[in-house]
């Protein structure tokens, strides 16, 4: 591997990491602004123009706060929890294709950290590991509220992982590939997957909400019921990690939703534009980010619009509604695929 290639990868990694952090940071700001907008008020407007420096101020506050580690807590795990949450949140970014190829010096470089052929499974695996961050944190606090919050969070995530997995399976059946890049490239033009998998798309979005613990599925940290859920005992930057991880998760989820179902960096009439390849790639990347930002906004929009589920309603929805529907979706998709391939004999 040449040094230059390595440098490009490194740059890409740094870029992705930075962009993720920045977007996550400004999501907190955006969240308040959107909330204010939806509730017809102003929102943060003191730090800098339009309050644009508010995330930095929040960060400073987080760093300055006192570190508290409960005396009966398992210290190592207490620290490990937020780290795992943060780490898993950031890891998914490596398989997301941020854009098409860039041609530098006659050689094509993909705008993706790595294109592993089981990318979608990798994303799924990382998401499933994300549970540990919450569970360990909640358990290590040695606090009953934290433990309850952690158990709620993890059972919620496990429950919705099933429906999510099934919707991905249905998607894979139509695309025939596990590589995210292949999936995105198949959607060039306007062959976006949500047209072929409308039900799967809906299911995936709902499950993504639950996986990121966003309203209306934000039971694990619901402020009023469980005193802050699994991170009751956390303070300062460890709390910041958890909150940050949530926003990164949101960003990554939006990216995956866009990539899987809404064409990724593809946009209609792509082939109509007469421009150099690199320019088109950059336009595609910009469009991809536009989609991501729309979905982040969508997340916030939903949060400030819909009321929260009760816990039993949440479980009921997961096991009795989403799971059967997703299985049905798989069956129908399979039948249609066989039928289209002419392998279906009545």
């Amino acid at each position, binding site marked *: 591997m040449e040094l230059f290639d390595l440098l490009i990868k490194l740059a890409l990694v740094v870029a992705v990491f930075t962009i993720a952090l920045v977007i996550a940071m400004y999501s907190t700001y955006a969240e308040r602004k959107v909330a204010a907008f939806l509730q017809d008020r102003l929102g943060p407007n003191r730090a800098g123009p339009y309050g644009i420096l508010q995330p930095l101020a929040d960060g400073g506050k987080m760093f300055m706060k006192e570190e508290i580690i409960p005396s009966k807590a*398992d210290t190592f795990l207490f620290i490990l929890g937020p780290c795992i949450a943060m780490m898993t949140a950031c890891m998914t970014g490596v398989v997301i294709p941020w854009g098409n190829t860039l041609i530098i010096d006659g050689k094509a470089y993909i705008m993706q950290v790595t294109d592993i052929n*089981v990318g979608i*499974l990798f994303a799924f*695996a990382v998401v*499933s590991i994300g*549970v540990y961050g919450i*569970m360990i944190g909640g*358990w290590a606090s040695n606090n009953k509220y934290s433990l309850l919050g952690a158990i709620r969070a*993890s059972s919620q995530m496990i429950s919705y992982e099933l429906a999510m997995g099934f919707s991905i399976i249905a998607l894979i059946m139509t695309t025939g590939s596990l590589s995210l890049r292949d999936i995105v490239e198949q959607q060039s033009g306007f062959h976006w997957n949500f047209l072929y998998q409308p039900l799967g798309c809906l299911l995936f979005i709902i499950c993504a909400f639950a996986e990121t613990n966003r309203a209306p599925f934000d039971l694990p940290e619901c402020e009023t019921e469980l005193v802050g859920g699994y991170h009751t005992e956390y303070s300062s930057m460890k709390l910041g990690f958890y909150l940050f991880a949530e926003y990164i998760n949101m960003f990554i989820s939006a990216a995956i939703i866009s990539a899987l179902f809404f064409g990724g960096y593809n946009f209609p009439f792509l082939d109509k534009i007469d421009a150099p390849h690199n320019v088109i790639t950059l336009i595609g990347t910009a469009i991809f980010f536009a989609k991501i930002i729309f979905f982040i906004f969508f997340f916030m929009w939903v949060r400030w619009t819909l009321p929260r589920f009760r816990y039993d309603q949440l479980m009921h929805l997961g096991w009795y509604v989403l799971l059967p529907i997703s299985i049905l979706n798989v069956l129908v998709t399979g039948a249609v695929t066989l039928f289209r391939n002419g392998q279906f004999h009545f």
Partner: protein
Amino acid sequence: MSVIAFYILTVLCIFSALMVVFSKKPVHSVLYTIFCFFNIAGHFLLLNAQFLAIVHIIVYAGAIMVLFLFTIMFLNLNAEVEPHKSNLLKVAAVVCGGLLLLILVSCLKGAENIPVNPMLDTQMGMVKNLGMVLYNEYMLPFEMLSILFLSAMVGAVLLGKKETK
């Protein structure tokens, strides 16, 4: 480079496996188990079995160990709860394990003479390839596995249900 990776993974693997056994707290054991499984997944990656590596993480780390952690949290097991075995038994256990290792290693002696296939088929561990084999040659075991799962699920639900009179 991959040789170095192999040894790092191996050492971590054995270390975490030992820690599984010797950790005082069950939760630590679980976490070490997860860590061990990650290392094993790394071994799979080294062996070019990417699909298996990811599935290994999803199944073991993502599902099975979560269940363990869950159970431990539910039952609220800590180090204090577990009664100690007598030292004699512990020594016996270690001796037994060591003996087994000795026997296994000595029995496996000579395996290095088995010829290694020099041509590495990089496509072998791919989903498509495995799927072809699984759904053609191993169709019946696969179907039976589904029955096994169904019965395990029914059994688990039945066992976990509170008795209602």
